[in-house]
Every structure is written in structure tokens, then in C-alpha cells.
């Protein structure tokens, strides 16, 4: 136990002096998630505000469709008259000079008068999310105009327009404000786990592959110290850095949530200090597992570079169950609590949704992660006792 603490103190202090460790553990890892999250939400806010703005439309051939033009203007559409052919309109939209063009063919008025369907062309790029919104609005307005004409045609012929509307669809959205927020916030749980792993990334490398590359490993291994104490001290130091990174990350999330006006999106964020503390408690058992996993992988590598390559992949490991969960939209369930990272993701999501969380689920999640950590620790200690460890 004494040697374990000596190793822990040395690894902790040494890495405190390493700029690379500090950068990844205490800056990049914890702040990347909150930063990206803040950017994403602000962008969504921009877009939602944009939908209330008047739609700007370029129209060609408005002379042949005076009524339609007037109708659009009365609906608050900002029209720009620019006569152009269909091909010209295509080119203009493709080059991005104008977002959406409404082309009214010359025979529009004649067809309308004859009572045959009169095509109008709505030229837009559906791969551009911004103009797609404009095009959708224009399509809605045009459909409204079309049905207004249809109704008056039916009325003129003495038919009740209601007969042409046999089914009426009414949307009822039951998403609660915080439930809707989960859609946005769902990926945040990954960033929390990512911050945990990033916090220990360089320490896990430095204390294993780094030790070998530096040439200090053999001297260390020739000391009369149990290998399990060496490994234990190294993993403990990695854990402490991971906890620091986790705490910083959660703190940053709390700050971001305070400044990002989520209510404007019709969501309530529910990420105050209390939730952050709950997140910390939920993720705490994942910390030794992450530290053991990274130390395990790094112990088998020969050099710093090799360790970096493999550990970058390890950073993605917690995404797999989370991606699986979102594809199959899994909800908190007893059996899923045995899967580390997934269980933490589900528990955090439940807390965020303000759903009740069973104490048993929390215990199972913690026990599963800790047992996996212990198994890995035993494997690492066994590997360190092997002669091949000398390299």
C-alpha cells in the first residue's frame, strides 16, 4: 500500500508539470463537449428564429399570375421579380446566387382559366437546410392558394367544399419541454464520458508506454516492489485526473446551460448544480473502468505513438453502446444496467428527463463497471509480472 501511494504521488505530480497532459486532461477534454453543445444550440436558435422571418422568394413571370403574386405578398412573402427561364433559374439556384426561385410558365393563366392543372416550378436545393426551410414555406403557401381556388371552384358549382376534406389531421405533441431537450442534449452524455477518458489519456500513456520509451521501466521493475502496487498507483493517478476532467466538464456544462436560452426552443434544460452532482456520482464508477481500460491497452504498446493510436480508438468505445441505444431508442431497463457506458448514458438521460431513477439500477450500473475495472486490473498486473514486459 505504501509503494502504491508513492507511485501515485509521483505520477500525479510529474504529470501536473506536463503541458501535454494538462492541455488534454484539463482543457481540451472537459471543454470540447460544452463548447460544441453551446455552438449547436445557438445555431438551432438562429434557425428557429429564421422560420418566423418573412420568406424571401425570387419570382419569374409574375405578370401572368397577378392574383398569386398578390396572395403571396399578402402572406408576408418578400418577392423579388426577376424574369428568367427554367434553365436560368436552375443555374442561379445551383450557383447559390438566389436561394429559391418560383418560375411561372407563360401558359399558366391559360391553363388556370381552362381549369386544367397549372404547373408552377419551385426551384430549390433540398440538400441545403436553410433554403429547404424557405422552399417548405413557399410550398405551404402555394398549397393554401391552390386549395382556396379549389374551394371557390366547388362553391361555384354548388358543391360543399367540406366534402373535399374527408379527413382532418390534428397534431398533438406530448413532448414535455425537458423531454424535447433530451433530443438535443442526448449526445451530451457522450461528451461527459469522453471528458472522463480524455482526462486520463496521456497519463495512461505516459505511465506505461512512456515509461518504456524513456527507458525508466527496467529500473522500476528491478525494484523490490510488487508489480500490482506499481500498476495500482498508476491507475489511481489516472483516476484522479479523470475525476478532475469530469468535474471541470460538468462545471462547464452548467455554465453553458445558464447562458444558452434553451427556453426559446421550448425546452427547459434542468442542468443545474444538483443534476451535475448526480451526473458525477453516476459516472464515478466508470472512472476506474476507463483508467484500467486505457492502462490495459497502453501496457501492450511499445511506444508513445503506438499507444496514442490505440487509445484514440478507445476514446470511441463508449460511443458504441450509446449509438446502439439511440438507434433502438432504448430506455432505462434493469438488464441494460450491466453494460458500462450504456448504463451511465441511460441513467444520466433519465435524470435529465426528470424521470424517477431506481436505486437498484444505480447500484447495478456501479457494480458492473467496478467489476469490469477489477478484472482489467488483475489482467494488467499479471501482464506486468511477465518477463515480456521488459520489451
Amino acid at each position: 500500500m505504501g509503494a502504491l501511494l508513492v507511485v501515485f504521488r509521483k505520477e500525479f505530480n510529474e504529470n501536473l508539470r506536463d503541458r501535454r497532459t494538462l492541455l488534454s486532461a484539463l482543457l481540451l477534454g472537459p471543454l470540447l463537449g460544452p463548447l460544441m453543445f453551446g455552438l449547436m444550440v445557438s445555431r438551432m436558435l438562429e434557425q428557429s428564429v429564421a422560420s418566423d422571418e418573412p420568406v424571401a422568394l425570387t419570382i419569374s413571370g409574375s405578370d401572368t399570375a397577378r392574383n398569386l403574386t398578390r396572395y403571396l405578398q399578402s402572406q408576408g412573402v418578400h418577392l423579388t421579380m426577376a424574369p428568367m427561364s427554367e434553365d436560368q433559374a436552375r443555374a442561379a439556384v445551383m450557383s447559390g446566387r438566389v436561394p429559391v426561385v418560383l418560375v411561372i410558365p407563360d401558359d399558366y393563366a391559360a391553363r388556370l382559366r381552362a381549369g386544367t392543372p397549372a404547373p408552377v416550378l419551385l426551384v430549390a436545393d433540398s440538400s441545403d437546410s436553410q433554403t429547404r426551410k424557405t422552399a417548405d414555406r413557399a410550398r405551404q403557401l402555394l398549397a393554401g392558394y391552390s386549395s382556396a381556388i379549389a374551394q371557390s371552384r366547388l362553391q361555384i358549382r354548388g358543391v360543399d367544399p367540406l366534402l373535399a376534406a374527408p379527413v382532418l389531421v390534428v397534431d398533438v405533441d406530448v413532448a414535455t419541454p425537458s423531454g424535447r431537450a433530451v433530443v438535443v442534449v442526448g449526445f451530451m452524455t457522450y461528451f461527459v464520458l469522453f471528458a472522463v477518458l480524455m482526462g486520463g489519456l496521456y497519463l495512461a500513456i505516459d505511465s506505461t508506454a512512456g515509461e518504456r520509451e524513456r527507458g525508466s521501466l527496467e529500473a522500476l521493475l528491478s525494484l523490490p516492489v510488487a508489480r500490482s502496487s506499481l500498476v495500482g498507483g498508476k491507475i489511481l493517478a489516472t483516476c484522479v485526473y479523470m475525476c478532475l476532467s469530469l468535474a471541470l466538464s460538468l462545471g462547464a456544462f452548467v455554465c453553458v446551460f445558464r447562458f444558452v436560452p434553451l427556453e426559446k426552443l421550448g425546452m427547459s434544460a434542468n442542468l443545474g448544480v444538483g443534476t451535475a452532482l448526480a451526473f458525477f456520482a453516476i459516472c464515478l464508477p466508470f472512472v476506474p473502468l476507463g483508467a484500467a481500460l486505457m492502462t490495459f491497452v497502453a501496457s501492450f504498446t511499445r511506444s508513445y505513438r503506438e499507444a496514442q493510436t490505440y487509445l484514440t480508438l478507445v476514446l470511441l468505445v463508449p460511443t458504441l453502446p450509446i449509438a446502439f441505444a439511440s438507434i433502438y431508442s432504448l430506455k432505462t431497463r434493469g438488464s441494460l444496467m450491466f453494460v458500462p457506458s450504456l448504463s451511465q448514458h441511460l441513467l444520466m438521460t433519465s435524470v435529465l428527463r426528470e424521470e424517477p431513477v431506481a436505486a437498484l439500477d444505480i447500484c447495478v450500473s456501479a457494480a458492473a463497471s467496478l467489476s469490469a475495472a477489477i478484472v482489467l486490473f488483475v489482467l494488467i498486473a499479471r501482464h506486468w509480472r511477465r518477463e515480456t514486459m521488459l520489451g
Partner: protein
Amino acid sequence: MEASARSKRAQRGIPRMIEAFGLSKRFGDVQAVRDVSFVARDGEITGILGANGAGKSTCLRLLYGVLTPDSGRACIDGIDILGETSKARGHLGVLPHSAGLYGNLTALENIEYFGRLLGLERRRLRSRTAEIARVLGMESFIGRRAKVLSQGQRIKTALARALVHDPGNIVLDEPTNGLDVMAIRSLRELMQSLKAQGRCVLFSSHVMQEVAALCDRVVIIGHGKVLADGTLQSIRDGNAAASLEEAFLQVLESGEGTG
């Protein structure tokens, strides 16, 4: 002080030395070391001489217990390195082939880290580091980060680290490899002073001049076997050669014949 303590122990008849008894080690298809026996005594510098790949490092690694022999055993001061690993290693200071330091720690912190791992209590650690720093002439750089030290300063720090628990026996694996002239010179002086303190010094080298300049005894190893073992004079005499170099070549040739 240390020397007198050791001589007292010597009077009580406690054996102090490094002994190898029939050590053998195989890696896959390669028999790295076969039936190696020798003794390195207190107050002497013993050199293990051999070409690259002759099995010197494997031999030393078996002695300080990071490798387990297939057969045979090694003792430090009469303590079996496998049977009582911790106790035996307490009597042994090791400067491995790659004796890297922790760049972000100071020279002193590097030494203290090993001292703490060896279980030295605080007061003893402080007096030991002060003493080593004085003996090795490290005062001017002991507070500097290891990454900014010169080669000579690094080798001193690594040696100080190996000596922090005041071991009676020192094993150095090709200690002069990659060092510049100044660093080699200070290392030689250090080894001489360790010998003068009555310690048992065992080191490996593939450079004959080095061995000839430093050693009281030489163990020549080729293809993992001991080809010759004795004082410089006895090896020269035994091969009727004028220089150690000639003797070395003769020994190697005869070794090839039987190997």
C-alpha cells in the same frame, strides 16, 4: 562509514557477493544463456565481456531477478533472488541497460522516488540523498529537471538512484554505452570509488579496453556460455597472449569451436 559497516559484517562471516550457479535461459528457439556460473566479490570490479548478443544482458537480468532462469539460481549476499526477491534486491543496486530518468522530475526527485519505493524512511532518505549528492558531486544540478541535464549528469543521477538504499552490490549493464568521453570518465571514477568503499561491482561491456582499464576480474561470455573466468593476468597467461585483446580473440575462437 559504509565500508566499515561492511567490514564488520565481513568479520561476522556473512557472505557478500553476487553468485551465479548454472544459469540457463531460453527465448523461443534461442538459448540465450547456458549453464553460466561465476562469482563477483566484494571490493572488486568484475567485468562481463562479450560481443553484442553474447548474452550479457540476459545474464545480468537473471541476476537482478527481472528474468526467471530455466535452471540454475542466482544469489545476492547469499540470498536467493527468486526465493526472497525483495530481500535480495534490497542488497542490490541496478543500473539497467536503459537507465532513463523522469524528465519532468528534478534529479533529486528522481532519486527520492526510488528511495521511497525502496521503503527508506524520510530522515534516512534525506541524509542518504545528501551524502550521495556530495560523493557524486551533484550539488550544482540536483534541483534541475532531468530533461535539461547533460549526459554525465544523467548517468550520475541514474547511478545515485541505484545507490540510494546503500546496497553492497552494484550491477551495471553496459553503463558507458552512448556516453561521451567526459561522462565515461566520471563513470569510471565512480566505479573505482564504489570499489574503494568495499562494494561488489559487476558490469558488462563489449569494449575490451574498458574492461582492461577497470576490472580486477573478467568473465568472458560467448554464445551464452562462460568461455573464461579469472583475473586479467590469469586469462592472458592461460592463453599465452601478450594482450587481453589477443587472449579475448583466442578465447572466442576456441568457444566457437566447441559451440
